[in-house]
């Protein structure tokens, strides 16, 4: 009889442990189609790698319960109108506990409206524009370093290499690029650099001939700008096709993707401000190291991770830690835990601004500058070239 009782007790205990298993639902939209497809997929893979690792370990523990992660997601078609409808749906029908952002600043700004209206926490990645956080929010948390940081790395590098260079800013007329270039221009002038041409192009532009002719006429030797993958890659191709004599070309976002190598000769020498690179050597206080992350990502997706993927993974990681710290999935308590976060992971330092007029803005993370160079065998590789303390290769200047 005693054995039966013990058996029953064990069965009940195991069942009880089993019932302690909860699932949290994380909602987001992906740009499976549309112009943002390439960058969004990389971000999604970051999310997915984190989720798969958590679930493979049996979930993570918080407040005596064990949580597995499931995703609810839709295709936003790179379109902000769809984002609003879909985030409402994720919250109201799919009952998402937490949200991740879509990819890109304008889509994230749209999603933020919905998540704030319903009082749900959203961690944003792939969105560096800062204005969203100044509109008075309680539950937004930005993983990326904000836009004004982006081109500082290029300008700092340029100042040491060639202070007499003539600079052209050619960029996408949309919230992210504008948020990057406007402070960058002021910073350039502050550094005493010579800005000779500035022009924004409409977001859906595919033919840059007119603007390129103007760049040539302005005698610029450095071009900074771009926007996202579609326009950035086209701009680079066309600049190369028009044989524009640039000594330095920094484009936003696009060159960070491994797909950039497809451009062949047009890709050589192009630099990109980056939120993270596999060569970054942060001492990780929580979660995997940089090398472990890169290795796991490469094994799963057969391609090295870009900074969009790192940002995506970091969203999951930081959320997980906050839930563990809070001991519950209650939004208000998790938000408190996020507000108190100040930690270094493989991704770098993460700390969120907490003042009401800039809540959620990323305050701890800094940028690096990466550049595509040909290695000894002639293959295209991406190296970290700035800041000098973090570099893995020297900045190639001039690029042609």
């Amino acid at each position, binding site marked *: 009889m005693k054995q039966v009782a013990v058996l029953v007790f064990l069965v009940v205990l195991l069942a009880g442990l089993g019932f302690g298993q909860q699932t949290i639902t994380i909602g987001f939209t992906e740009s499976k189609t549309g112009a943002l497809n390439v960058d969004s997929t990389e971000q999604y893979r970051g999310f997915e790698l984190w989720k798969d690792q958590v679930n493979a370990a049996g979930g993570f523990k918080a407040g005596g319960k064990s949580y597995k992660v499931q995703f609810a997601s839709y295709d936003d078609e790179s379109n902000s109108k769809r984002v609003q409808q879909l985030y409402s749906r994720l919250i109201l029908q799919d009952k998402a506990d937490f949200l991740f952002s879509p990819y890109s600043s304008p889509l994230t*700004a749209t999603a933020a409206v919905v998540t704030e209206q319903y009082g749900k926490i959203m961690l944003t990645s792939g969105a560096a524009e800062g204005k969203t956080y100044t*509109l*008075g929010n309680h539950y937004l948390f930005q993983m990326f370093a904000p836009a004004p940081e982006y081109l500082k790395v290029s300008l700092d590098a340029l100042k040491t290499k060639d202070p007499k260079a003539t600079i052209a800013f050619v960029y996408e007329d949309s919230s992210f690029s504008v948020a990057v270039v406007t402070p960058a221009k002021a910073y350039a002038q502050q550094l005493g650099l010579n800005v000779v041409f500035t022009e924004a192009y409409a977001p859906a532009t595919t033919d840059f001939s007119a603007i390129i002719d103007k760049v040539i006429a302005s005698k610029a030797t450095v071009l900074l700008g771009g926007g996202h993958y579609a326009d950035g890659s086209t701009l680079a191709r066309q600049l190369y096709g028009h044989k524009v004599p640039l000594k330095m070309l920094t484009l936003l976002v696009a060159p960070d993707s491994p797909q950039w190598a497809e451009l062949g000769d047009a890709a050589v020498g192009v630099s990109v401000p980056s939120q993270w690179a596999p060569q970054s050597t942060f001492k990780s206080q929580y979660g995997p190291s940089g090398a472990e992350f890169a290795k796991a990502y490469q094994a799963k997706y057969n391609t090295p991770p870009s900074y969009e993927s790192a940002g995506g993974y970091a969203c999951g990681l930081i959320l997980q830690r906050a839930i563990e710290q809070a001991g519950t999935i209650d939004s208000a308590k998790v938000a408190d835990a996020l507000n108190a976060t100040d930690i270094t992971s493989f991704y770098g330092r993460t700390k969120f601004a907490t003042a009401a007029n800039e809540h959620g803005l990323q305050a701890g993370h800094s940028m690096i500058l990466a550049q595509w160079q040909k290695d000894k065998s002639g293959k295209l590789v991406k190296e970290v070239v700035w800041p000098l303390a973090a570099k893995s290769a020297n900045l190639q200047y001039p690029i042609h």
Partner: protein
Amino acid sequence: MMILRHPFFYIILLIAAVFIYFPVHGDNVSLREDLILVAVAIILASNLNLMIGYTGYVNFGHIVFYGLGGYVGIYLVSVHNWRLVPAALVAGVAVSLCALLFGLLILRLRGAYFALATIGILQAVQAFVSNFGPWERSTGMYLPMTAYQPLGGATRALWITYYLIIGVMALSMMLSLAIKNSKFGLGLFAIREDEDAAVVLGVNATVYKAIVYSVSAFLPAVAGALMFYKNAMIDPSIAFEFMLSLEGIVMLMLGGQGAVMGAALGAGLYERLRSYLLTSPTLSNFHLVIAGGLLLLVVLFSPGGLIGWFYRLVPSARKVIE
């Protein structure tokens, strides 16, 4: 008032009541989100009907009124801290005046040339707004969260906006009904049938056209101000979507142009079809194919739309369902 003698007036009130009752009854926010899209589609289709169905002038660019209304509304609320209702009303008036100006320019054109001119106006306005600094060019404008405080916070504000949109929807249908049964409406029908003959018979076509074009802009502009307030953001690509303009025409043709119920029916059905198709994983790419196919069938075989077919079936319905 003559309009009170029409049974359809009460049908409009009933429809509005249904739209309000069901979401409120279960505090069903998800249903409200679905229905608000239907209501906006009905507003756009009904007002478009005034130009296409009544006057016979095909307006391909009518979404420009909605978008401009949204811009004026968001600008007044976010930059000048106006309250929602005055902002929406001013948006309506301002855009109607713009419509009057555009109308003066293009209403002398006939048929397809008028249609093309309306496309030109839509694209020109979008290009202008994309360059207009005070409205933040291509980046667009965002409402701070504090904009919802005067209405008691985001949750309450969204409900209030919903009631206002339903009100605008009812007004759109009543406007259509009133014009249809008025002397002004008769003049419009005469213009549609044969403009030159109408002029000879004493209809001041120039004035009539200008008035109806301007009037057809008012309620869509108000709706635009309300909807973009709800969405808390606006930019040129979502404010002036050409496809939305064209879908308005599809809705009208589907339901039956000329009839008030036709506009509402077509809008309601099309919007539900579109929502269903867009969130269905297998069918989301086919919404355009199905919509296009439906339109083709209607144009080729039943130009009177669903309502036209219904009237043929039950001729006495014409007096009740207008």
